[in-house]
């Protein structure tokens, strides 16, 4: 199935079909569709979306649950609530409780699972990669988390300081400080304004009750996707998911939508962060589009043309010339319109303005003159190869699928290689011209200040 990524798209592989293999009927599930080997089911009892992708490369499987809740669903006063809640989901549920010696992490550690949870702008995800004879352990834990979290104040208090240390660690990193400040400057009204970790005083001040309210609004089967990737039998997997998630009712109320739209930016914005340090950084970010927008694949190709390796344009212009120590280009792909960012640590002795000017000149050059077919082909191939490398491990597939679900839907993951394959040099030039506009630009600098006298 992966070879289809490499050859020109075959329509057969892309049309939604019931699949080449017979679809087993199941009393608890409705079969929805199949694409790229992934089968989508919906649990009839509560609307839980379930994705199955078999891969027998090794006797392991990754089970993951993605909730459509992230820092995008927060407002001032409870910024960081999604992330703090994610931490508390390790503390105790009705069945898995650290106070009873059955903490989620201890149970998973004992079977050799690789597990974690992460929070991002548009989603929260929980995942466990386990030996395939232990899949049910992971399914049970995630079902228990969905409605059974205890969320005790005695858990929140010590965990708040853990999260605060996570926040403090982030504040130590010039890159993280720059990216947080970039979003806070580029977004004024939309909740991408605040970082996923939250503002410090919100982390410290949010009440346990507020977290419980948040949990009760968003943690429901109809606001989640469960996925299983790896070595399993489909009928067993469906039965296991139905057994543990089936009894959970759907949400009593509709999941509240986000309706805040960031207005058009009408002029360049700039910020400076001065802290003690050794190295200056420069960040340039242009306002772009939501992941689902048709320009997203061309922006991804553009990012690789500019930053995908030693032969990419910005690497040649900044690192080969010894102006910067490195350069990274991030075409943020989020559910709502996001940014196209370039970050560069400046080599000591170089004026940060020179680095900024160089980045702007390269952006303008792509917009004015376009890119070559060779550059476009290289970028397309790099992105396609990444998708294939992902398939080497079940947890990487789960991670990529989770992001697709968060920002669009899972078929976006299946379609992405073909969307990228279809990008032309003219598309790349067009999106560069459309988005590399000064009025939509935010420029940030991290400048080292002299250490105070000892």
């Amino acid at each position, binding site marked *: 199935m*992966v*070879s289809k990524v*490499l050859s020109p798209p075959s329509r057969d592989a892309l049309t939604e079909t019931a699949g080449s293999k017979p679809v087993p009927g199941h009393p608890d599930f409705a079969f929805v569709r199949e694409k790229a080997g992934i089968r989508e089911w919906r649990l009839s009892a509560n609307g839980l979306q379930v994705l199955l992708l078999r891969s027998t*490369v*090794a*006797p*392991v499987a990754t089970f993951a649950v993605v909730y459509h809740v992230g820092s995008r669903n927060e407002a001032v006063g409870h910024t960081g609530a999604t992330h703090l809640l994610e931490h508390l989901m390790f503390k105790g549920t009705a069945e898995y409780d*650290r106070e009873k010696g059955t903490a989620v*992490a201890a149970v998973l*550690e*004992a*079977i*050799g*699972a*690789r597990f974690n949870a992460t929070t991002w702008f548009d989603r929260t995800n929980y995942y466990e*990669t*386990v*030996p395939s*004879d*232990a899949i*049910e*352990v992971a399914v049970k834990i995630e079902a228990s988390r969905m409605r059974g979290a205890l969320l005790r104040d005695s858990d929140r208090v*010590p*965990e*708040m*300081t*853990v999260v*605060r*240390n996570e926040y*403090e*660690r982030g*504040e*130590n990193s*010039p890159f993280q400080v720059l990216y947080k400040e970039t979003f806070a400057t580029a977004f004024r009204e939309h909740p991408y304004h605040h970082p996923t970790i939250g503002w410090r005083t919100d982390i410290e001040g949010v009440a346990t009750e507020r977290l419980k309210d948040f949990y009760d609004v968003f943690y429901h089967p109809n606001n989640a996707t469960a996925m299983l990737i790896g070595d399993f039998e489909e009928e067993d997997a469906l039965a296991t998911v139905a057994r543990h998630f089936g009894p959970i009712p759907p949400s009593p109320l509709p999941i509240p939508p986000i309706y805040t739209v960031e207005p058009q930016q009408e002029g360049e914005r700039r910020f400076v962060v001065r*802290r*003690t*340090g*050794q*190295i200056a950084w420069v960040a340039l970010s242009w306002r772009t589009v939501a992941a689902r927008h048709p320009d997203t694949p061309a922006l991804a190709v553009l990012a690789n043309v500019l930053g*995908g*390796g*030693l*032969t990419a344009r910005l690497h040649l212009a900044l*690192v080969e010339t*010894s102006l910067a*120590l490195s350069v990274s280009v991030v075409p943020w792909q989020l559910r709502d319109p996001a940014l196209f960012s370039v970050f560069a*640590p400046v*080599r*000591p002795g170089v004026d940060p303005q020179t680095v900024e000017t160089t980045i702007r000149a390269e952006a303008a050059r792509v917009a004015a003159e376009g890119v070559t077919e060779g550059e476009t082909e*290289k970028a397309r*191939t*790099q992105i396609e*190869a*990444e998708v*294939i*490398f992902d*398939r*080497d*491990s079940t947890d990487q597939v789960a991670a990529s699928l989770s992001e697709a679900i968060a920002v669009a839907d899972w078929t976006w993951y299946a379609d992405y290689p073909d969307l990228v394959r279809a990008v032309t040099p003219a598309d790349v030039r067009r999106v560069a011209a459309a988005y590399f506009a000064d009025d939509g630009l935010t420029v940030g600098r991290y400048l080292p200040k002299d250490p*105070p006298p000892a």
Partner: protein
Amino acid sequence: MTTATAAPRRKVPFAEAVRTRTLDNGARFFVLENHFNPTVALSGSLHAGPLFAPPDRRLIASLTAGELTKGTERRTKLEIAEELESRGASLAVSAGSADPVGIDVGAGSLSRDREVLLDVLAEVLLSPVFPEEELEKERMRLAGVVREQQDQTSVRAFETAARRIYPRGHPFHRRTAEERIAAIESLTRDELLRFYEQRYGAGAMLLVVVGDVDSDEVLDGLERRFGAWKRGPSLDFARPEPVAAAPGSETVRMPDKASADVVLAHPGDLERRSADYVACVLANSALGQSSLTSRLGVRVRDTEGLTYGIHSGFSATHLAGPFAVSLTVKPESRDAAVAATLEEIHRFRNDGMTPKELADEQTSHVGRFKVDLASNGGIAHALDAAVYYGLGVSYLDEFPSLVEAVTKEQADAAFAKRVNPDLFTIVSAGSFTE
């Protein structure tokens, strides 16, 4: 509910599935076919690490490794990069930080590009030219990177601890940033060429290829490319003299840092081939491998909320590196966090593991081993390490049994012998006021 008990063993043992070939010049090749996904992963090692560089010029080893891809007799750096990047392939040669004996080779491509990948690999290993202009760029970049790292509390804490624990000239010693920048700026092309001539050769190399390939084709291809390479140096190396612990503490003051890093470490005497290696790993795992479930994590993170992350570990390679515990804290919490950490380590060393802890760690390591071997890259890396440390391919088959055979007495005794918190050098780096 299904529970994981003793792990089922592989249907075909690695010892049977892995094809190997050793050339007359000493080069060793290992290939495992895995046709699930059209990719290939390569992992390899050469005995050309910092241990073999002059004590005051250790950087020569990492520079030599890093500059291999910067130009060959046939092609420039950018031509080589273009060849790989246009295919989404990658190749890196680097001096690993933990093991001073070897350097690591890592590469990957789609399987349709495997010949190109092997061509480039052979080209950079056999005919590098170390262009002066590339070395000059790298000197400038590296000097900046060293400065950039000095902004990181973790780097400052680890470097200071290493400097206090290991004497100058020792492979685990870390010189100051200023000393290293001076060394970087004075490194010459002749030094790299000389080190390359002395340390690079077929007899010092092993390569592992895992993925969607035909093993005969790969083995023949490797022999064709490397068969004429000189044998080069032997795999022998001299261990440095043992180092006595130097208990004490030091604070590195860095302004404007919201989080501080603390390192507690002493010299270790555990090597990867030590008989009690697995026992030590299981014991350490119960003490401090995981911030969520191990004793240090449960106490300092989960119960007291003093840290986001706390870890302990042995550095056991061809040489015995330090035993170290590291954690991040807000500066005001340091003393409480350090006291709790020391108390837990003392208790663990005095009382040993509980039988449940040992049983959990055993199932955990057997299960995790399976999870880690679930990708081409994971298998290649594990095979490379097993051969590199002289354990052999069959070690991957034996590992679960070795884990299951460890007794509580063995684990407790091994840990108590190898770790003594009274000997820790404790270094904190961050915005401390007093």
